[in-house]
């Protein structure tokens, strides 16, 4: 018998964790002499009350959906892929090459091509750590985080030596051709009289991310491959008994994970900057870990958690802009949310389980 009803596990625990995080964040804000209520108001106002705010929130959320899904898929196979950052960087390279060197007639084809490029490059970057883990037992956490550094160095080299237009000072590629311009929310939802999402970077890639959620959900719970990934993740000995090859599943799960992380750069590189720049990932690969943790590795949970973190990113930027709360404190608040929703999950869970057991006994 499960100790708690499912809704409590999925809804109640994250909400309580969030409230705890909010409480401690408020204490921190108080401690530096600012008003936490004002700060919260400002965050909500800046991130959620105007369409432009939503435009930023959803732009960040799109990144986090992809990296969150990437971590989730790997985690179902009990692989902790913390190389989303590097895989997304290399995925960006794939996007840039596809956009720069293939003459696309229309953005709708270009986004498909760029997705394939991003996914292939991201997957390729996950391939080596996967093989090292599967065949040599090199721990995937170590190798993927090392590959993040290699990816950053590689990107730097490629931008400076190859992709930088002649004469440019900036380590960035040339601007992508106009045909690869993705419609932003502003393009899509503004009418002649009422401009919407003005200036915000959210673009059509958000819908690609939603599709990715559905596809990952189908993959994990409805297909043979998903069945094997979950079985392997739960018990390697049982997987062997069933004839599921550990090497094969490790590699495939990591390739899918890398591909999803890579696809994040469709949003940043193609949708926003429209050229390949250094550090376009901005740590989204790491936020993906927190998003997957909070979303319980379920695509729907990942979607909700990604939007929450999008809100924190955007609201945090607003705070930094309008108050004397330093940018670093925003990171502290984000860290508190990660701490309470991810790492300290059991702190909330254990007492809550006791409450439910007591309630049930009273009812019996």
């Amino acid at each position, binding site marked *: *018998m499960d100790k708690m009803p499912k809704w409590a596990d999925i809804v109640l625990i994250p909400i309580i964790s969030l409230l705890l995080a909010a409480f401690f964040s408020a204490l921190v804000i108080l401690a530096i002499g600012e008003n936490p209520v004002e700060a919260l108001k400002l965050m909500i106002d800046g991130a959620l009350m105007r369409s432009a705010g939503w435009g930023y929130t959803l732009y960040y959320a799109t990144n986090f959906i992809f990296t969150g899904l990437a971590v989730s898929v790997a985690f179902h196979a009990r692989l902790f892929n913390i190389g989303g950052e590097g895989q997304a960087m290399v995925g960006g390279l794939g996007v840039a090459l596809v956009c720069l060197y293939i003459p696309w007639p229309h953005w709708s084809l270009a986004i498909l091509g760029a997705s394939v490029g991003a996914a292939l490059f991201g997957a390729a970057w996950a391939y080596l750590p996967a093989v090292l883990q599967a065949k040599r037992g090199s721990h995937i956490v170590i190798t993927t985080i090392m590959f993040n550094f290699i990816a950053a160095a590689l990107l730097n080299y490629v931008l400076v030596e190859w992709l930088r237009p002649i004469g440019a000072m900036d380590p960035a590629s040339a601007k992508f051709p106009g045909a690869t311009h993705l419609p932003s929310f502003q393009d899509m939802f503004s009418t002649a009289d009422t401009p919407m999402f003005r200036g915000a970077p959210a673009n059509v890639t958000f819908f690609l991310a939603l599709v990715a959620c559905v596809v990952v959900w189908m993959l994990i719970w409805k*297909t043979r491959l998903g*069945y094997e990934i979950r079985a392997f993740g739960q*018990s390697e000995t*049982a997987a062997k008994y*069933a004839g599921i090859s550990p090497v094969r599943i490790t590699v495939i799960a990591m390739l899918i994970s890398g591909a999803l992380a890579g696809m994040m750069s469709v949003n940043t590189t193609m949708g926003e900057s429209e050229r390949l720049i250094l550090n376009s990932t901005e740590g989204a690969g790491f936020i993906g870990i927190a998003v997957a943790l909070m979303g319980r590795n379920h695509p729907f949970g990942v979607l909700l958690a990604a939007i929450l973190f999008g809100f924190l990113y955007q609201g945090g930027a607003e705070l930094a802009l309008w108050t004397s709360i330093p940018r670093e404190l925003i990171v502290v608040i984000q860290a508190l949310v990660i701490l309470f929703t991810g790492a300290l999950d059991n702190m909330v869970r254990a007492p809550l389980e006791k409450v439910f057991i007591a309630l049930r006994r009273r009812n019996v």
Partner: protein
Amino acid sequence: MTAPAIELKGISKAFGPVQANKDISISVQPGTIHGIIGENGAGKSTLMSILYGFYKADAGEIFIKGERTAIPDSQAAIAAGIGMVFQHFKLVENFTVLENIILGAEDGAMLNTSLGNARSELKHLADEYGLNVDPDEIIENLSVGHQQRVEILKALYRKAEILILDEPTGVLTPSEADQLFRILDRLREEGKTIILITHKLREIMEYTNTVSVMRRGQMTATVKTDETSPEHLAELMVGRKVLLRVDKDAAEPGASVLDIKGLRVVDDTGVERVKGIDLNVRAGEIVGIAGVAGNGQSELLEVLGGFAEGTGEIMMNGAVIPLSGHGADGQARRASGISHVPEDRQREGLIMEFAAWENTVFGYHQEPEIQNGLLMDNKGIFSEAEAKMQRFDVRPPDPKLAAKNFSGGNQQKIVLAREIERNPDLLLIGQPTRGVDIGAIEFIHQQIVSLRDQGKAILLVSVELDEIMSLSDRIVVMFDGHITGERDPKHTNEKELGLLMAGITDTSAVAGNGGNDTTEQEVHADG
């Protein structure tokens, strides 16, 4: 009338919504062996854990020698004269016997005095109770039977008057078990009180004075052993009449299904576990492999089941099957008509976190008939699982429940339903009733026999000699990776098999209808 050595009054303990012990009262007379028997999950271990201070009872009182005693932790239990020998020994493998014995009972900061005292005390105990162990031997070099003696010595060194043994014979050969009971007899004669927890009716009948039966957290009866019978005890345990003997006709073996020639298996650590065996299994017969755990039976099953590699030759229905590389995995084995009920259903046979319905296709999840285009036909699998669970009487019959939430017996039924209903040519079955309650054992044995009667070949591996003897049509004994003998179950006995299990192939002295006592044999278990 002396006060009872231990008396429990109204002990209750609940874990969340589960009532593990309910109002248990029991009184154990000093100088007796008191058996406690019950199915898995009946609450035996919980009760003993309360007695040894691991759990705190929700209600009830404990009296030791007539005095009310609180046992908040195991230190208090030891102080009250209670010693416990766990099923899984709690010994430091790379320490000597002596070091293990004083561990936690050192007197003073300097080890040398403690070791000296312990050495003389140990000699005294060894003489008094026939508990001979070399005090300077490293634990991992001792046989399992001797390791168990160290556990008993540990308890006696701490002045235990009451000794609790939890399933002590599970890992022993028959002759080691005999020796254990001789020691227990000595201890009883010297006035110690022994509580024996077991699920083996034979041990209860042979060695105990009194027996208490537990069922579903309650003590259903306490009876004098010589006033009861195995059938009666089984009925008390299960709550209904149980058939203890396997009911089967003589086998009518057909063509050979499995032929093994010169099979060798080397494990991950480079140790050769199977050292060249020849074996065949024919259609319509059950071949039982007897042996103490760790003598190569598990590796044999693993190679046949496709999750370990070996060398040699294995033929299935006359065709050679690969033993390593591609084509030697579980999928390939299933395709060649082999089904496998693995020894460890929790680590191998089932994904404990998966729902029962998902587990009913585990290993067969690639079969085309349960696919629906790119996706799996989850609806179809679910309704088939429902029907399977009905046919195999899995309780509760809820396919949505995770495998970990079923009892051992019902988990085993899920695995059996999956493997038997594939209609295999050869069924490999390891430890079919390990951790399975008596009621379910009867059902599982019937299923195995009925599969045989349909003309299937069955290879059975079990460490329960009773099970091997009652189910098999042919018995093959393994010791140290070799086959030491093959016997007809109708013309052999436990003593003879016990000798073969210890690697002694000259069994003329005990063959047929028993004979003289087995001599002391050192049996080194691996690891």
